[in-house]
C-alpha cells in the first residue's frame, strides 16, 4: 500500500493476555516488567534482585527478593463493516483507506509481538475476507488487498450484533471500523455484547457534500436502503446537513462513551497517525 511507513501506535490500560514476549505489561511473573511485589528468597532464589531495604525491615529477618511482571502481548482485532454504505459510489475510496489501516495495524502488531486478526461483517459476520488472529504478516497483506478491492453488495450491517461470537475469548483490543449507520439501540446492544473487549470505534464518515455543487439539484440514493431523493442544494441546506451530522456525532459519542473508548471520526480520509494519537489518549 502507498502508506508504506504508516504505523499504528496503540497502548492499552489493561494487562496483556498472552505470555508471548511483547511490549505490553502483563500480570504474569517474569522479568522486564513493573514491580509486582516482594518474595522471600526461598520462594524466588534470585540473588540479583535482592532488596536490601526490605530484607532489613522484614520482621522475620528473611531475605526479600523483588518480583517483576513479564512483558507480554495481546491480540489486536479489527472488525470491518462491509455493507453497501461503506462504498456509496463505485469510485469511493473509503475501503481503500480501511485496507491501509488494516495493513498498518498488522505491521504495528507484528512489531509489538501481538497477534492480529480481522473479521468483516455486513448482514452477518462474513467468512471472507477474514483473518484468524495470528502473527503471520503476509496473510494480513493479502486480506488488506482483498478489502481494498471489495465491492459490497449487502444493504445491512446487522452482523455487528453477532460480532462477539467471532472474536477471541480473551480480552483483545478491537478496532471497530464502520460508518455505524445502524439504529442506536442496536448499536448499544452490540456494544454490550462486546463489553469483554477493549472496543476502539473508528467512525468512517463520507464527506458527501464536498462533491456537491454550491447550488443546484442533486439526485441521491441511499446506499444502505436504496431510497432515492432529489435535493436542492443551497447554503441553508448545507448548514442544516452539517448540523445533523454534528448531532449524530454527539449521539455516537454518548453511546460509545457509555461503553468504553471515545470514537475516532474519520471524515473523508482516514489519518492513521491521528488515529494512533487518539488511541493513546482515549
Amino acid at each position, binding site marked *: 500500500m502507498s502508506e508504506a511507513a504508516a504505523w499504528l501506535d496503540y497502548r492499552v490500560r489493561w494487562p496483556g493476555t498472552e505470555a508471548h514476549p511483547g511490549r505490553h505489561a502483563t500480570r504474569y511473573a517474569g522479568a522486564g516488567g513493573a514491580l509486582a511485589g516482594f518474595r522471600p528468597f526461598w520462594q524466588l532464589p534470585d540473588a540479583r534482585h535482592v532488596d536490601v531495604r526490605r530484607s532489613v525491615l522484614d520482621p522475620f529477618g528473611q531475605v526479600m527478593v523483588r518480583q517483576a511482571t513479564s512483558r507480554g502481548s495481546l491480540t489486536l482485532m479489527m472488525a470491518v463493516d462491509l455493507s453497501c454504505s461503506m462504498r456509496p459510489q463505485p469510485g469511493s475510496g473509503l475501503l481503500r483507506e480501511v485496507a491501509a489501516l488494516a495493513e498498518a495495524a498488522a505491521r504495528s502488531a507484528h512489531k509489538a509481538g501481538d497477534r492480529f486478526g480481522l473479521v468483516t461483517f455486513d448482514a452477518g459476520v462474513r467468512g471472507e475476507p477474514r483473518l484468524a488472529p495470528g502473527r503471520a504478516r503476509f496473510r494480513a497483506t493479502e486480506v488488506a488487498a482483498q478489502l481494498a478491492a471489495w465491492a459490497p453488495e449487502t444493504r445491512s450491517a446487522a452482523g455487528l450484533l453477532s460480532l462477539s461470537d467471532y472474536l477471541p475469548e480473551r480480552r483483545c483490543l478491537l478496532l471497530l471500523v464502520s460508518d455505524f449507520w445502524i439504529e442506536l439501540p442496536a448499536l448499544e446492544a452490540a456494544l454490550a455484547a462486546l463489553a469483554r473487549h477493549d472496543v476502539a470505534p473508528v467512525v468512517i464518515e463520507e464527506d458527501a457534500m464536498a462533491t456537491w455543487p454550491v447550488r443546484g439539484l442533486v*439526485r441521491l440514493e441511499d446506499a444502505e436502503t436504496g431510497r432515492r431523493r432529489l435535493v436542492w442544494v443551497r447554503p441553508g441546506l448545507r448548514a442544516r446537513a452539517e448540523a*445533523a451530522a454534528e448531532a449524530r456525532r454527539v449521539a455516537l459519542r454518548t453511546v460509545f462513551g457509555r461503553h468504553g473508548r471515545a470514537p475516532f471520526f474519520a471524515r473523508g480520509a482516514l489519518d492513521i497517525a491521528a488515529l494512533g494519537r487518539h488511541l493513546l489518549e482515549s
Partner: protein
Amino acid sequence: MLAFDRPWLLVLLLPCLLPLLGSGATPRGIASLSLVPRDFLSDAIDGLLRLLMAASMAAIVVGLAGLHRERTSVVRTGTGAHVVIVLDRSLSMAEPFARTGEVAHESKTAAASRLLRAFLVERPHDVVGVVGFSTEPISVMPLTEHRDAVAAALAAMRRPPLANTNIGGGLAYGMSMFARDDAAATRVLLFVSDGAGIIGDETQNYLRVEAQRQRVHIYYLYLRAGDDPPLDEDMTGRDDSTQPAALDAFFRTLGVPYRGFEALDPGAVAAAVAEIARLENQPLQYREFQKRRDEDGACFAMAAVCLGAFLLARLAERAGKMQPSPQPP
C-alpha cells in the same frame, strides 16, 4: 366537444405514469440519506419535475392522438326573420336602373343584388333563401343560415338575365320554401321585380292559402324605371292585371301584412330595404356554427413548455461525478 382522430394512441398514456414512479437518471450514492435533512422545497421540486415529465409525455401522446374540438352548432336567440328573396330575372332587369345616370350605369339586378347583400350584412341572424324567376322559377338557395352562400347566390344574380316574367311561378315557389321551414320565426317574402304580370287563378288561390297559413309578411320592391306605371296608379275601371298596381292590389287582398315600395333609383331601394329591416325584427332562434378546431398544436406547445422547464432543472443538476481517489501504484 373534444374528440380524437386516433383514439387508440391514448393507450400510450399508461406509460406516461412512469415518471411519477421515479426518474431514470443515475443518482449519486450516499452512505445514508439521514445525513440530508428532510427538505420540503426539494421534495416539492422533485414532485414538480415528475409531474412535468409525465405531463409533457401525456401532452405529446394526446397531441399525436389528434385532439380537436368538433364542429358544433349552438342555438341562440336574436332578432330577425326567415326571408325568401324572390328576384326577377327577366330581360328587363338588365336595363340600367337610373336613367338619370349620374353614377355608373348599374343594372336593376346589380343594384338590387348589391343592396340586398348590404341588407343581409346588417341582419346577421336571418335565415335566407333566394329564388330567381323568369319563365320558370329557379331555386337558387334554399333557406339557410350560411351567409356566405347567400351572399354568393345574390352575387351570382348579376349574371345575364334570361327570358320572360312568370311572377306567379316565382311567388309560388318562394312561398313553397316556407312549407318546408317549421321554425317558429317571422316569415318574410321579399319580392323584387321591375314589373308585374298575370297570375293564374290557381296560383292566386295557392298563394292566398299559403300566405295565410304560414303568416308570411310580403314586401313588394318595385324597381320602377322612369316611364313605368307607378305602383299607386288608379286602376278603377281598368282590368289590366299586368300592371304593378294590380299586383299591389292583389297582395293587399291576401290578408297578411304587406307593404309595397316603389323605387326609382338605388337610393330609394336602399331606403325601402332599411324600412323592411326596421319592420322585421321579431325574436328569432338561430344556430351558430363553430368550426372544427385542432388542439394538437396546443398540446405540443404545452409539452415543449414542460420539457423546457425540465431541461432547466436538468441543467441545474450538475452531474459532477465524484473524483475517484488516486489508485495505489
